[in-house]
């Protein structure tokens, strides 16, 4: 059982309910975690006000990585935007490519070849696996288990090889473009992918044994960092975070996109809503992705047909006025693009909704209160946040 | 051009120098004819006639030079190797009477007729002459005229058969 202290005294509150933190009292201390800190996820920092080893207040600071993508996109043509969107999320860039392409296709009225939908789903699941593998290393690392990161990096690298041979690049794939995908699967891809999936399953067995069936890990994560039921809607919680709270929300199932309505799966859920459960939901979701990839490869059209729809000449492609929102279920939750067009050759507005935007800001700031300093890193990682999708 | 007479005259000759002198005479007459014509035709097609006169002058110079050379036999057999195609030409074979004011097409047709006649003449001379330096010389002369005729023919088609819009 986790230790449950009496929270009634700290931090003290003012009459209006806000925290009464007087730094000169000597009771409180400012503690910065990040932007350079091993216990931080990417380029962000958290400003902690601690009382003893307990956090009284936490503030997320972002802006170390702001590139103004949404604004940049307003002065690039619809095709020119396709290579830049992937940069909004480094470890899992494909959702940007997919959501952007799908939004453009929807507003431009372009029908994508079915083959491209299958390949898109394949890529998104491959990206999800990579994202989870990176997370597992981070989650374990936040609790001192460096070896997990080494194992997951190895199998992730194998998946990067698959990305490289399919898309022509390892990190920024730039393969899903408005109109479809660039190409069919290379010859022999299925065999090599099957080998990679096998390696991933092996690695996950080891990770399960060493990380999850581990007394230390359990002690540090069970009952800690619980997302309360009533926060789920207040803080826009999605993805494994909401599924670990027992709510079977998964865009792939709820509002199936691409070919997900043709695949057999159930959303992976947990019930305790703590760090351990979220990690476990992600581990099982990873295995689900392995299964989905196998399903996709066996069910998709086996021949090499067209993968791109005919688009207008991309050099002066204009789209009628309209607005839409396209979402997908990424490894961290709901990823979505809100696209507004005005009849010109450029988007009027693009807004990127990354799950970290709510998770790492308002939700984290709520959750970190009363948290033990030593658990902050694990808590933050357990929300699986990627700062660039917060500030874009 | 008095074809029969020239043929007889050439055929009668046995010495290389004499043959050359007759041929030289041919070219001189032609040059003088064109030079004379140049003054008569309209200025816009004068270039054609002047070019023809120049060409004949070139032949004339060539023959004059040949007849002066000591090593003429070697020289001729060397030159004989140059092959020249002899494609048939059609609507220009018929020699028109050149009036006072011939147009470009008439001038060209006339010139082509002349070259053709000369070419045939040298060919037949060569055929009725036993192998040796004299035959080689006729062959050479025939090739010269053939080449010139080919050039003129190209010019003819370029000017007359321009194709239209």
């Amino acid at each position, binding site marked *: 059982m986790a230790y449950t202290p009496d929270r009634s005294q700290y931090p003290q509150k003012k009459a209006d309910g806000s925290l009464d933190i007087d730094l000169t009292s000597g009771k409180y201390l400012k503690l910065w975690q990040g932007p350079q800190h091993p216990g931080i996820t990417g380029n962000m920092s958290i400003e902690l006000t601690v009382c003893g080893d307990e956090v009284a207040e936490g503030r997320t600071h972002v802006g170390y990585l702001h590139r103004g993508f949404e604004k940049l996109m307003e002065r690039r043509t619809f095709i020119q935007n396709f290579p830049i969107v992937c940069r909004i999320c480094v470890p899992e860039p494909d959702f940007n490519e997919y959501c952007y392409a799908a939004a453009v296709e929807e507003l431009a009225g372009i029908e994508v070849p079915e083959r491209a939908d299958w390949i898109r789903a394949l890529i998104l699941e491959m990206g999800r696996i990579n994202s989870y593998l990176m997370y597992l290393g981070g989650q374990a690392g936040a609790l001192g288990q460096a070896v997990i990161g080494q194992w997951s990096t190895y199998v992730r690298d194998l998946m990067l090889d698959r990305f490289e041979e399919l898309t022509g690049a390892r990190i920024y794939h730039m393969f899903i473009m408005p109109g479809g995908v660039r190409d*069919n699967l290379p010859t022999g891809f299925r065999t090599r992918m099957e080998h990679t999936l096998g390696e991933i399953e092996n690695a996950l067995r080891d990770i399960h044994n060493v990380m999850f069936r581990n007394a230390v890990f359990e002690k540090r994560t069970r009952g800690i960092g619980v997302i309360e039921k009533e926060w789920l809607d207040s803080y826009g919680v999605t993805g494994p975070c909401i599924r670990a709270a027992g709510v079977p929300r998964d865009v792939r199932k709820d509002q199936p996109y691409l070919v997900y309505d043709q695949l057999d799966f159930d959303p992976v859920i947990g019930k305790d809503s703590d760090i351990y459960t979220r990690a476990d939901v992600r581990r099982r979701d990873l295995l689900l992705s392995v299964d989905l990839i196998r399903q996709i490869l066996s069910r998709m059209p086996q021949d090499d047909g067209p993968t*791109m729809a005919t688009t207008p000449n991309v050099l002066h492609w204009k789209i009628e006025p309209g607005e839409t929102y396209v979402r997908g279920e990424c490894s961290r939750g709901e990823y979505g693009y809100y696209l507004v067009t005005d009849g010109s050759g450029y988007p009027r507005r693009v807004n990127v909704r990354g799950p970290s935007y709510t998770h790492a800001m308002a939700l984290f700031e709520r959750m970190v209160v009363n948290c033990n300093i030593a658990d902050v890193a694990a808590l933050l990682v357990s929300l699986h946040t990627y700062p660039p999708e917060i500030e874009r | 051009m008095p074809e029969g007479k020239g043929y007889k005259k050439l055929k009668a000759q046995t010495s290389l120098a004499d043959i050359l002198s007759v041929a030289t005479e041919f070219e001189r007459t032609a040059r003088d004819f064109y030079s004379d014509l140049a003054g008569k035709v309209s200025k816009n097609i004068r*270039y054609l006639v002047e070019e023809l006169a120049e060409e004949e002058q070139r032949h004339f110079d060539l023959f004059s030079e040949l007849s002066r050379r000591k090593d003429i036999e070697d020289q001729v057999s060397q030159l004989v190797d140059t092959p020249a195609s002899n494609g048939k030409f059609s609507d220009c074979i018929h020699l028109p009477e050149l009036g006072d004011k011939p147009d470009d097409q008439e001038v060209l047709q006339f010139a082509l007729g002349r070259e053709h006649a000369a070419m045939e003449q040298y060919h037949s001379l060569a055929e009725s002459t036993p192998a040796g330096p004299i035959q080689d010389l006729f062959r050479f002369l025939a090739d010269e005229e053939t080449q010139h005729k080919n050039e003129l023919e190209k010019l003819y088609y370029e000017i007359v058969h321009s194709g239209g819009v």
Partner: protein
Amino acid sequence: MSIRNILSPFTAWKYLFRDPVTIPDPLNDRPGSPRYRGFHKNDMKKCIGCGTCEAICQNGAIDMVAVEGIDASKEDSGLRPNIDYGRCCWCALCVDVCMTGSLTMSNEYKWVESNPDAFRFTPGVDKKHWDNAALGYHRPDGYQLTGRVREQMPELEPAKRIESFDEIVQGYDVEQAKLEADRCVACGLCIATCPAHMAVPDYIAAVRDGDYERGLKILYDTNPFSQICGRVCTHRCETVCAARHEGDPIAIRWLKRHITEQVPRDRYRAIIGDPAPPTGKSVAIIGAGPAGMTAAYDLARKGHAVTVYEALPHAGGMTRYGIPEYRLPYETIQHEMDLILSMGVTIHYDTRIGSDITMQQLEQDFDAVILAIGLQMGRSTRIPGSEHAGVKKAVDLLRRITEGEHIDAPKSMVVIGGGNVAMDIARSMARLQKQQHGSIDVTLTALEDLNHFLADPDEIKESLEEGVNILDSRGPQQCQVDAEGNLTGLKTWKVLSIFDQQGRFAPSFDETDEQIHPAEMVVEAIGQMSDVNLLGEELTERLEWNRGRIQIDTNGRTSESWLWAAGDCVTGPDVVSAVAAGHQVAKSIDAVINPVEALTHA
């Protein structure tokens, strides 16, 4: 918590006995995948310097630079993409959009330099170790970012069009024109090739935007024969179009026509605008064809008093008297001419210089004179029998048809010639035959083989569709006349070869392959010449000539300081070249007769 969860982590020890998974020598043992988007390659033989790669690069990483040793030509700007690897993100949009497929990527991804400027390089020019890499990203088959297929032009069906002289080409509708205009990548390679240097990408952009008034303004800035050129231009622009490398060239001519059709005719004058105030200078122009009327338009717009002398009853020159109405309706020409005349141009029809007025008179009365008399006289083969009354010249017949004269169509006829004039007369006579006899019997013989016809491929195709019997590689030998003196046909020989190695005419014939083509009429359409008799002997002698044509300088000025010459009579047959020449002489004349004005405008 169980004992298992304490022991389980120790399974990690098994990794002690595993081989490392890292690649021992990644610099050499780790080639990029076959479709890896590595360093760029550019095939110098294919690249045309269209700059589309630069246009699509969202990083601004590409500059188009002139390269030593690569000369520009009409179909190649000579520029080559220089890529800044400090900016490139290897998205390969440049490869995808490349109009010729010259730009590709290798699977090489390692490149070490100490000089950062070395990473700005011109692929294909700066030799790199990956230039011959077999693997790397190429645009996959069937994948396209720009349209490849030309919009089909609606046309009358052959059976329908042979019934009358109605215009065959119907013109694009707005939807089609937008789609066709959309294919253009606006590289502008075509501008240099267009004799009038029309701003092609700009007016195509106007079609895309649906802004036809803007389009019309752009057209008439450079071409007062836009309606005419939109129908019958030789469209050399389309032969250098970047789109032709991996698809159909843009239908530039049809788009021009489309603009002129979309603007109501009563709006033209207002869009083009009024001419400048009068300058008090005067110019005479001989010949109301494209060259003469273009010069008239330009000079009148500059405020000069322009008088045009036309020997025939209508303006338009060869566009009217040479081109059949099914290709170019007379009322279109008339509208174009009226527009030019509305700029304040005076025209005297049925007035022949040389007989009605002399050149000397014009020299005296005007500040400058332009000779734009075209090529009105048909050439004859002068084969035996060609002097027969049944042997006609195509240009004469076409002129008579235009004038509305009744022509007795022969039951059978032969046309000699493989150019557009030959097609025009064959198709015109076929229509008359159809009207008068209900059936068509037109044989067309040409020296050239079908692949070397001077006529446009469209003309050949449409002639065949309309029932014209085309016999290629036939050399005319004789017009056959029977004992009663009636023309009975044409004798031809087979042409074995027509060009020599330099591509010059040097036909050779096979006499044994002789054919007689029965015909009541033979029409010669082998070429045209200028009727320069109007100059008079004295002026002819004074002028300098260049191989049969009046010698002009680059501005179209002759050796006589008051006389300029332009159009087919000096540059050979082509509408748009004549328009260009018209502009040229107008500019030159304006600079000479109105030097101050020209200077301030410069």
